[in-house]
């Protein structure tokens, strides 16, 4: 672990000023991922700018009928917030599927978006990794790649994004509010995280000197027909092999609108507009779910150890769509799949 300076930001403008003035600085909020990475010498910030005391901890209704979630709202608070539980239960469920209660107590909304991959090579400075050390090579391609990507990967990087919350946010089509030296802007959730391409060290489209101030949820929360299921190697406190967030709008037993996003399959939460379109206007039937899953996974390709994910993703998509259509979402405290 490398020594570092520690400063506190007094407000958002001050945070932007400080990070602009100190290019090797990093923001720290909950620190649940950053501190681990610093201990492992993966991150070596010269300065930590503590933003945890900034007034970004409110959950507020928006004029359009959505919700604006401050970037510093802790994951636990968010998942148990009455408006989230009632209007966006899929988000509450996804958050509760992640990490442990203790980590969720510390982790912030904005920080959750910025957590780094769990690829073992990214964490081990004795091995090469293009995400950690650009141009050094990807050790996972021909190494231990059981947890790695089956979609959207590049020969430079086959890591996956580890968040559960982000899978639900992608499905919900949230917007990310950011502020920087050039002012404030919004980024559509689908555009927030990047695919690895040739630059796997850049996880997001957040500017170097920008800060996340809020995540905005649109009014549609799929509170009636939704689910979040997470398949992992133990029943709690493990990252997803496959996770599926589903939101359906139903008319009788027909689907008016379908959305589903997968975690554990790509460098970002993965959606397929084609697969979703294939369900619109269709009966909620196993056959149609299978078709949508097949479209979703058409280009999936695995590696030596993660080929199983393709078939597992298919089964999980079908199961999640079934749960959502039936209005019987997975309850995270219950480990039996519904």
């Amino acid at each position, binding site marked *: *672990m*490398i*020594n570092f300076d520690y400063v506190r930001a007094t407000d958002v403008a001050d945070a932007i000023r400080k990070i602009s003035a100190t290019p090797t600085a990093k923001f720290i909020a909950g620190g649940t991922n950053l501190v681990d990475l610093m201990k492992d*010498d993966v991150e070596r910030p010269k300065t930590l700018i503590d933003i945890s005391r900034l007034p970004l901890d409110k959950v507020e209704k928006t004029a359009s009928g959505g919700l604006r979630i401050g970037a510093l709202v802790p994951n636990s608070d968010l998942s148990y917030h009455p408006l989230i539980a009632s209007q966006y239960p899929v988000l509450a469920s996804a958050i509760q599927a992640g990490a442990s209660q203790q980590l969720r107590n510390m982790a912030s909304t904005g920080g959750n978006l910025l957590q780094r991959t*769990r690829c*073992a*090579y990214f*964490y*081990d400075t*004795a*091995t090469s990794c293009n995400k950690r050390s650009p141009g050094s090579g990807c*050790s996972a391609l*021909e*190494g*231990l790649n*059981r947890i790695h990507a089956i979609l959207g990967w590049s020969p430079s990087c086959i890591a996956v994004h580890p968040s559960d919350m982000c899978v639900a946010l992608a499905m919900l089509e949230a917007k990310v509010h950011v502020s920087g030296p050039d002012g404030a802007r919004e980024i559509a959730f689908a555009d927030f995280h990047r695919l690895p391409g040739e630059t796997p060290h850049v996880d997001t489209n957040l500017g170097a000197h920008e800060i996340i101030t809020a995540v905005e949820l649109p009014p549609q929360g799929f509170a009636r027909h939704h689910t979040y299921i997470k*398949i992992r*190697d*133990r*029943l*709690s*406190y*493990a990252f997803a*092999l496959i996770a599926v967030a589903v939101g359906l709008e139903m008319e009788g037993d027909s689907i008016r609108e379908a959305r589903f996003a997968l975690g554990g399959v790509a460098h970002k939460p993965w959606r397929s507009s084609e697969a979703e379109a294939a369900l619109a206007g269709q009966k909620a039937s196993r056959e149609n779910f299978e078709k949508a899953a097949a479209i979703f996974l058409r280009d999936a390709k695995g590696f030596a150890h993660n080929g*199983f994910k393709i*078939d*597992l993703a298919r*089964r*999980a998509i*079908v*199961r999640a769509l079934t749960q959502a259509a039936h209005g019987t979402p997975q309850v995270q405290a219950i*480990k*039996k*799949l*519904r």
Partner: protein
Amino acid sequence: MSTTYIGTPASRVDGPAKVTGQAKYAADYNVPGLLYGAVLSSTIAKGRIRRIDTRAARAVPGVVDVLTHENRPKMAENDKAWKDDVAPEKGSPFRPLGDDRVLFNEQPVAFVIAEDWETARFAATLIEIEYQNDHGQTDLEAARAKAFVVPKPEKPRGDAAKAFASAEIKHDAEYFIPTEHHNPMELFASTAVWEEGGKLTVYEKTQGVQNVQRFLCNVFGLKSENVKVMSPYMGGGFGAGLRPQYQVVLAVLGAIATKRPVRLVLTRQQMYGLGYRPATIERLRLGAKRDGSLDAMMHDATAVTSSFEQFSRNDTGWGDLLYKAPNSKHTHKLAMLDVPTSSDMRAPGAATGVYALESAMDELAVALKMDPVELRLRCYSDKDQNENLPYTSKNLRECYEQGAQAFGWEKRNPAPRSMRDGSELVGWGMATGVWEALQMPAAVRIALSANGHAEISCAASDIGTGTYTIMAQVAAEMLGLPIENVSIRLGDSSLPNTPVEGGSWMAATVSHAILVTANEIKGDLLAAAKKINGSPLAHENPEDVVLSDGSIMSRKNPSRTVRIVEAMREAGLDRIEKEKTHQFEQVKGYVHNTHSAVFAEVKIDEEIGVIRVTRVVNAVAAGRILNPKTAGSQILGGVVWGIGMALHEETAYDHRFGRIMNANIAEYHVPAHADIHDIQVIFVDEPDGRVNPFGIKGVGEIGIVGAAAAIANAIYHATGVRVRDLPITLDKLNR
């Protein structure tokens, strides 16, 4: 024998100290001037250090010294000095900072000592090393062909190969257990402190303070009277702390180099550079008649050890204890890899070997279309066929019966995939467990005060199993005192001699040492009581009195008593102190083992493969149970570990680099709370007057043996898919 304390579910006497933070562990001892160490670990598995540059590290303000193989203080140069009490017989033990050779990944290559831990850790990142990388081998499968046979006690019987070849029903399969690490909660740590007169006290995480004390004296040429090792509490050992680990050598090296006290706490990642349960390939060949009687048993194990020591335990041969077979032959091989030396880990040998044996027996039952319990009863052996000796006691039949009944085994439909609960397939499996009932010579000191308080002390470690508690129970019983009046001191190398805490032998070992020492105390008390004018015990012999309820009491005539405090007062005794060694020898003409029958229920989502272990019943026959509460916890913990072994645990190597890629407890999976459901422990009544006077067999390890097999067998019953390589992750079911 009617008892007051022995056999009662007493709560841990050390519980309050632990939950209030009063119990101090190795890294909790603070002294003025304490220095902090940080280890730099190797990043290659095999090679040499060509160049090591510590100048930048030394230049950091607050750094006091940086030790490497080039500048460390002197250490012993012969292997004998480095062989601790439980070192493997063959080989050359690892010497930290010994020379420029790298023998495994995560090997310590430099030791930074600074005024604070952050500085030490920072400075360690500034050390530059140039390696000659000889690309080590860490893959058991790749090294298998070079594995060599190591001798084991069991002798071949009959002609197993021939009997197997002509058997009516044959089962031949290979099972695999990956490398597993202990992952105790407490990190390995040592605090080495100089006392007045150049004496050294080392606060240490260990399962044997006297083993570490002798080791340090040998390695550093120190006089025994000048070195004391303390480990009164331990945050989990499981075998990891049987041998002295490298951190204690470094802490003492640091203390010698700086002439100041030094503390070293390893990181979680560095804990993966210590011992481990070796990856093992187990081949089982069973030949049977159609009626289920066995003709042939062959068990061949190939396990991992380091390139420099030969560690192995008995994986094979357990079948000779459990199942009658006229022909039997086993081999045990070792493959030397560029890894640290493998080590004991809860039920070493049995956890792995019996997993394979009991999986194979299940597969044989399937082939015979026979109930798995019925098959085991058909083959039940009343003697150890290796030794051709009977057991001191073996109530395994009762384990099968009581376990099956508690589980509801008779409702099992034998056909795989035949039982379900909604979207889940239900599987019921069972397995046998077996472990040794061992005992060692040991001494304890008892100091009885005139106020009726007794202190019992010995060097033994309580590694979390409940040794403090059962010692207090046995001592209170033997001395006839309330348990509140008994205090226990452990984990100090200057106290009476005891062996390392391992092999499930400590309960029997210390209990009998207390028994003989308490008898000495009783003799003195009777002598004192006789001095009272008109003593009611004037004509009693020591063997005819007991200490009970604060009094010396005649067995024949319990109305004849003298209060202990009164006897001591009359004799003018402030204190009676005795130290006796129980010179234990295992009983001749019998073998001594613990046994169990484990029954497990799994529920598996048919579509997705999510596995839940919803019920486990573990029926254990382990002689006299001193404390059903702490003993029950040992079995529960063993079952939880068995669930982890079956479903979760695997140390993942990237053999290209010879590195462990999940050296942290986020990615090295052990069961989470959500993975654990109902676990029922049954202690089958097993009076045993032969194994030792108390009839104690020990329960530290039997709980894990068979648990993984019972779960694996249940998974087969649920799904019809037989997975033989652990852990059974859901992708293996969906293959």
